[in-house]
């Protein structure tokens, strides 16, 4: 029941936001977001990592066909629900300083998005998962297409159609799997785990899932929609896309691809791994020369997600645990970084590094927050990025030493583009664009402070989260290795 409440609460909050009128909308939305966070924390308190999927519910949807409206929470789901509910109120609050036309609609879309995301992370029925997977696209599409930059229509249309194109492959795979289930058929994900598929079939299913999730994350070479979309979207939508939505793809790999087609993994995992590793290096190298800060972070995010995927394809405990904790860390860092860029943009009206410089002279607080998020992003030990990157790289290294060493170049390249980003905006002589630059306001700090706390929490005491997911991950890996 709690799971259903988790999914419905943001919808309810979204509707109330819509009805509350333009003036109150953002406050109402924030309260709605915080309420969801409170509920998620309550669920976390009740949760027992050793007890498998909990708080489940199941309503017959298409009863005769065995398709049901079923959801529940295990450690993996809970981690992503916590990520979603933690970040959503911060995303809402981060938008306060800008004025968006049709405020009520704007904020309610964020909440609808939250609901769909929680649905994706908790669905235990494959078709329900698919439903939420597609539904999540709609609010963010409108956010980007209505409130985005100059090229928004062209860019968001491409993004929308392309990701649907990917999902169609998954749909075909799901329908096929559904018809393979015995008796009157069932679309419960755990039923899919029990199927005995021939290696040939597994190969097809592997690639069908791969394409769908690879486009979503995105992985090389399915990524070219992403930098444009991240750059053109209004920052709250960029945050939703990069902070949470891309995790749908990684989650999909973990929940579907690994356990359903283990021999597909065996045959094709190396190739997927190689693509992921290429993406890490490719994205990092491109990020080095970017001048638009948003685009730079977009490519960095693309590189990071490649490493997560590589960890998943290593199908090892280190890799999966690393991917999970990195999803959490990446969500926090990338949202913080996009917010910093948004703050700079709203003050200076430029996002181009060539036009910036010397901001730290007038804004020491901003530069300190920026530095900490950056350190998290370049995986400095005792920050959140390190734990994930350490586990991920060690898993890739154990899978194949050479690939591990190549993937490891990310720690060098990451510091190259991130320090350049920091230096060109914060240090050096003050540029004319940053004249009169104000340091952080109270509400901006209210967004950044929780993020920073999480940077250190995950970096210093990751056990909180590692322990949450380990039993579920071990169970999943047993399916893969059998």
């Amino acid at each position, binding site marked *: 029941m709690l799971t259903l409440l988790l999914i419905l609460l943001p919808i309810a909050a979204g509707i109330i936001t819509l009805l509350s009128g333009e003036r109150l909308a953002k406050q109402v939305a924030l309260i709605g977001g915080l309420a969801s966070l409170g509920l998620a924390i309550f669920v976390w308190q009740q949760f027992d990592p050793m007890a498998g999927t909990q708080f489940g519910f199941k309503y017959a949807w298409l009863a005769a066909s065995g398709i049901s409206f079923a959801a529940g929470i295990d450690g993996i789901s809970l981690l992503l629900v916590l990520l979603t509910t933690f970040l959503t109120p911060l995303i809402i609050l981060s938008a306060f300083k800008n004025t968006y036309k049709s405020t009520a609609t704007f904020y309610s879309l964020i909440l609808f998005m939250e609901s769909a995301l929680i649905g994706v992370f908790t669905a235990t029925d494959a078709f329900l998962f698919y439903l939420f997977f597609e539904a999540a696209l709609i609010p963010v599409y409108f956010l980007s297409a209505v409130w985005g930059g100059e090229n928004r229509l062209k860019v968001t249309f491409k993004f929308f159609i392309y990701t649907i194109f990917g999902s169609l492959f998954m749909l075909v795979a799901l329908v096929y799997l559904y018809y393979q289930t015995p008796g009157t058929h069932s679309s419960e994900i755990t039923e899919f785990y029990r199927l005995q598929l021939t290696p040939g079939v597994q190969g097809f299913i592997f690639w069908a899932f791969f394409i769908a999730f690879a486009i979503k994350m995105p992985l090389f070479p399915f990524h070219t929609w992403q930098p444009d979309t991240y750059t053109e979207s209004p920052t709250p939508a960029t945050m939703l896309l990069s902070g949470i939505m891309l995790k749908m793809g990684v989650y999909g790999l973990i929940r579907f691809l690994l356990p359903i087609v283990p021999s597909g993994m065996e045959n094709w995992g190396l190739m997927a791994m190689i693509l992921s590793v290429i993406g890490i290096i490719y994205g990092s190298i491109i990020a080095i020369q970017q001048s638009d800060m948003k685009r730079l972070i977009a490519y960095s995010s693309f590189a990071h997600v490649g490493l997560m995927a590589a960890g998943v394809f290593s199908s090892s405990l280190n890799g999966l645990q690393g991917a999970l904790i990195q999803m959490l860390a990446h969500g926090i860092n990338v949202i913080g970084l996009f917010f910093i860029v948004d703050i700079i943009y709203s003050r200076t009206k430029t996002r181009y590094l060539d036009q910036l410089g010397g901001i730290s002279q007038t804004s020491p607080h901003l530069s300190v927050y920026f530095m900490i998020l950056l350190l998290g992003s370049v995986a400095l030990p005792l920050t959140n990025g390190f734990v994930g990157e350490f586990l991920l*790289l060690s898993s890739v290294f154990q899978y194949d030493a050479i690939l591990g060493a190549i993937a490891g170049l990310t720690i060098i390249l990451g*510091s190259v583009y991130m320090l350049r980003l920091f230096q060109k905006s914060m240090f050096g002589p003050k540029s004319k664009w940053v004249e009169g630059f104000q340091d952080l306001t109270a509400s901006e700090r209210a967004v950044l402070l929780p993020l920073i706390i999480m940077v250190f929490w995950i970096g210093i005491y990751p056990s909180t989260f590692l322990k949450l997911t380990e039993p579920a991950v071990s169970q999943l890996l047993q399916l893969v290795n059998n």
Partner: protein
Amino acid sequence: MSASLLILIPLLPLIGFLINGIGFKTIPKGAVGIIGTLAVVASFVISVMTFNDFVASGSQPLVVPLFEWITVGDLRIPFSFQIDQLSLLMLMIITGVGSLIHIYSIGYMHHDEGFGKFFAYLNLFLFFMLLLVLGSNYVIMFIGWEGVGLCSYLLIGFWNKNTNYNNTARKAFIMNRVGDLGFLLGIFTIIATFGSVEYTEVFAQASSFSLEDPVIVTICLFLFIGAMGKSAQIPLYTWLPDAMAGPTPVSALIHAATMVTAGIYMVIRSNVLYSLAPSALEIVGIIGGLTAIFAASIGLLQNDIKKVLAYSTVSQLGYMFMGLGAMAYSASMFHVITHAFFKALLFLGAGSVIHAMSDEQDIRNMGGLRKKLPITFITFLIATIAIAGIPPFAGFFSKDEILAHVFEHNKLLWVIGVIGSLMTSFYMFRLLFLTFFGNFRGTHEQEHHLHESPASMTIPLVILAVLSAVGGFIGVPEALHGSHHLAEFMSPLYDAARQANPAGFEPTTLSHSEEYLLMGVSVAVALISAVVAYVMYVQKASVPAPDSAEKSGLQRLVYNKYYVDELYDNVFVKSTKTLSNILYSFGEFFIDLFVNAAVRLTSFSAKMLRKTQTGSTGDYVFAMVLGIVAILFWKLLL
């Protein structure tokens, strides 16, 4: 020994950092300096107490677990500390020299607007440096390793309005990260081999490996890549001379006395592994030797007082690795200690000179300073004698011990070492004479402003001078009828290694007369260089030519540091940038063609599908019939 006291050693500087870092705008300057310095001094006092306890209680190594850090499956990486001979020695150097440099900084940085920030960073550095040497496993060492790199970055770019300084800071961080990747791959190999990163477990298991086992050699080489980065060895040394952009106390503390010796610490810590991999040690020794002579040769022609000292540091670190290569772990540690004294002193002395000279660093514009800066002069002189290897000052004993071991191990490297000594003595006395002797060559304004530094700066100079003079007596060789306290103290560290590779630990076969001869050679070489430098720069009073002057080919090559920076810039930096541009413009365009095709395909099929939704019942019936026929067809035929 109480564990809570031990935790305070790194915790106090961390607290100092937090107080000064958060309150740097509101806390008055006086208080900032006191808080920052007290944190380190207290840490030093606790380190000394811990040392005494350790010796009193029979020198038993101790692991103090704090909390569970990263645990995944069978891999446990606890956050815990290890106290033994090695970590204690490092603790004392770091907090001891650290205290002196904090006190010095109160005077040196007094006029700087970033005073609070400076002390905060310095304390943060000490926190990470102490973690590095206190950790009981490789990953805790890695925390410190990367943490000191961060602080080094922040402090090199301390005056961050200057774009050049920022660039050198960034270069230092990135080059260190190249090394860090090697370290990380070493850790991964350790995990894959031993399933643990804890020193005690790894070394216990390693003892059962055979000599030259490829896995052990691989681990050693990976770790050494890390050491090359942090300790500025060929090919990863070019960041250190550039790091001189930071304030001078930073150069003394981080880029001379402590952080850059982390690589030596790492090898000594891993002595069990290295002793099992003589071929890896051979590489360590060769790299060390090459670095020692290469950097010394660059130092011969530099005219920036800090640059000379920086190349000297690179060169001295090379000596330490040369010693490690000959399995003379204790001798290298000995040199770490004496070098910490005299090199910190040289940098602080240089700082005092720069302070007096109104930020002038070019020795061609100095001269005759010994009258106006007597304390700085005397202390700088002592340090120069110490580094040149003239007895009975500290550097003589440690360098000589390294060279004696190298002589037994590899004669060619010994020759390189002696030539390096020759150069060391020359560039140091050249520096001394050009700075403190002859006539003043600066501007009138500078001359008018010349003054000896305040007590907060000269007292640390005097203390370090005393240590540089007498520090060598902790390791007097038997040949000189002394007893080597340091070697005895450190000996239990190699128990496991001694069992695994007994041949490597056999006592010296050199007779006393051979040892005297070796000592005689290195002392003679140092004295000859000093005399030559005296003749050139004092008697003939020659001054290095200005930059604009014509230089011979070889001079130009050395003066421009063999163009290594330019080489790296072209090979790595520019090519990466070009690749980045190519990938961005062509790679992305090419991939996008496929994406666009997929988008068009989807929209096109959507349009087609939409056409089937005509709304006409006739069409639907037709489609239904078609479907039924198809199903029948399928069922009947297949």
